[in-house]
């Protein structure tokens, strides 16, 4: 059977202790059975490890930070495409860059022939941490109460309204648990300095952390959904090991979210299971760093997303292997300084 060969650009190459999903996405693309790939890495910094993994990434280009804006990003992608001849698909993998890529989706497709398969701007905004409580109320999902805070002077009153302990969260990343008003203010300042405003104060729910990695087709159908429990959590709250669960309730809740919102593209739903009740903590509008587990469990959701964008018919996955584990590991790459020099000075490797 003839397999098409796609050139696919991927961001999120920071395979560090709080890893981006890029490497997992690339491995899944290379494991695809319906197409072959040439992988173009898109990096922000010269020390993103996956740049130097030459068996995974064929060529890497640096791209501008999201704060540079959509036009600068478009120009850089247009340059990369001119060098590559074609880019068939692009996988943005960072929360902070997604807004720009969502806004550029039509332009990249019509002007450069680069496809993506992303949530709409409305879906992206509606599931934002700041709006998640309202999102949950609207769609019948249990979400811990949260309040967005824009000034340190608001923190104490808002925190006392929620009660202690509570979670102090950045709008994109970072969360700390505060046990009193002083701690809440301290974390507010720290997170504000790093991620900006608003900072979120959220009711703290104890229990077991469980996540779902899935894909919606944009028409209310779930293409795939794999629930996972974190077995080993790093001090940054990231899963360093996990296992797929046999949990029909989580799959049902996921289906409800996708159906009610007509979710388009990949997502990760993060829950805390407390006394047999699932509290939705976050919806990340992209694949998580552990998404290669879905491949191991029999659902190559990453391959499915590419095929959806390419107009290839995709059958929804109806099962996955329960009890499949992943264990992450750290490794040291030996790198010639000439490679570091090239990506640092020329922005390409």
């Amino acid at each position, binding site marked *: 059977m003839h397999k098409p060969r796609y050139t696919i650009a991927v961001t999120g190459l920071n395979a560090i202790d709080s890893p981006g999903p890029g490497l997992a996405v690339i491995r899944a693309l290379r494991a695809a059975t319906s197409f072959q790939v040439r992988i173009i890495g898109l990096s922000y910094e010269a020390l993103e490890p996956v740049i130097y993994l030459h068996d995974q990434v064929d060529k890497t280009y640096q791209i501008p930070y999201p704060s540079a804006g959509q036009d600068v990003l478009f120009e850089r992608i247009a340059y990369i495409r001119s060098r590559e001849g074609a880019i068939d698909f692009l996988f943005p993998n960072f929360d902070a860059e997604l807004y720009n890529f969502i806004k550029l989706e039509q332009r990249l497709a019509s002007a450069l022939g680069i496809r993506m398969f992303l949530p709409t701007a409305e879906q992206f905004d509606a599931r934002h941490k700041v709006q998640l409580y309202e999102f949950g109320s609207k769609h019948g999902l249990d979400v811990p109460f949260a309040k967005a805070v824009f000034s340190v002077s608001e923190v104490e009153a808002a925190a006392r309204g929620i009660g202690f302990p509570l979670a102090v969260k950045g709008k994109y990343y970072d969360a700390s648990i505060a046990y009193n008003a002083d701690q809440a203010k301290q974390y507010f300042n720290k997170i504000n300095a790093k991620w900006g405003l608003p900072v979120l104060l959220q009711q703290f729910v104890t229990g077991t952390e469980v996540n779902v990695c899935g894909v919606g087709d944009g028409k209310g159908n779930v293409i795939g959904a794999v629930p996972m429990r974190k077995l080993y959590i790093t001090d940054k709250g990231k899963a360093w090991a*996990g296992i797929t*669960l*046999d949990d029909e309730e989580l799959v049902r809740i996921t289906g409800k979210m996708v159906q009610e919102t007509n979710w388009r593209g990949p997502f990760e739903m993060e829950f805390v299971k407390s006394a047999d009740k699932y509290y939705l903590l976050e919806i990340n509008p992209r694949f998580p760093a552990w998404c290669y587990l879905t491949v191991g469990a029999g659902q190559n959701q990453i391959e499915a997303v590419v095929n959806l964008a390419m107009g290839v018919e995709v059958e929804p996955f109806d099962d996955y292997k*329960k*009890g499949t584990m992943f264990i992450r590991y750290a490794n040291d790459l030996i790198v010639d300084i000439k490679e570091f020099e090239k990506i640092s000075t020329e922005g390409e490797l």
Partner: protein
Amino acid sequence: MKLKKNVAVSETGFLFNPSTGDSYSINPIGMDIVNMMHEGRSKDEIKRRIMADYVCDESTFEKDFYDFTLMLRNYKLLEENA
């Protein structure tokens, strides 16, 4: 008293609950009890077999069996109505 249907038990005494992702190791006597539970045997049958196969009096069995099944229940490995 029955183990949940989806709980997997290996020959080496490794027990995995796919609903929670938790796994446990049990010793040979625990394995015997769990296997008999899987076969749907009653507590009296289990008691007879254990007392025949191991050096164990009835009161020790009763106490240890109670502790063991309490643990299985706490870990949500038993059917709710069992």
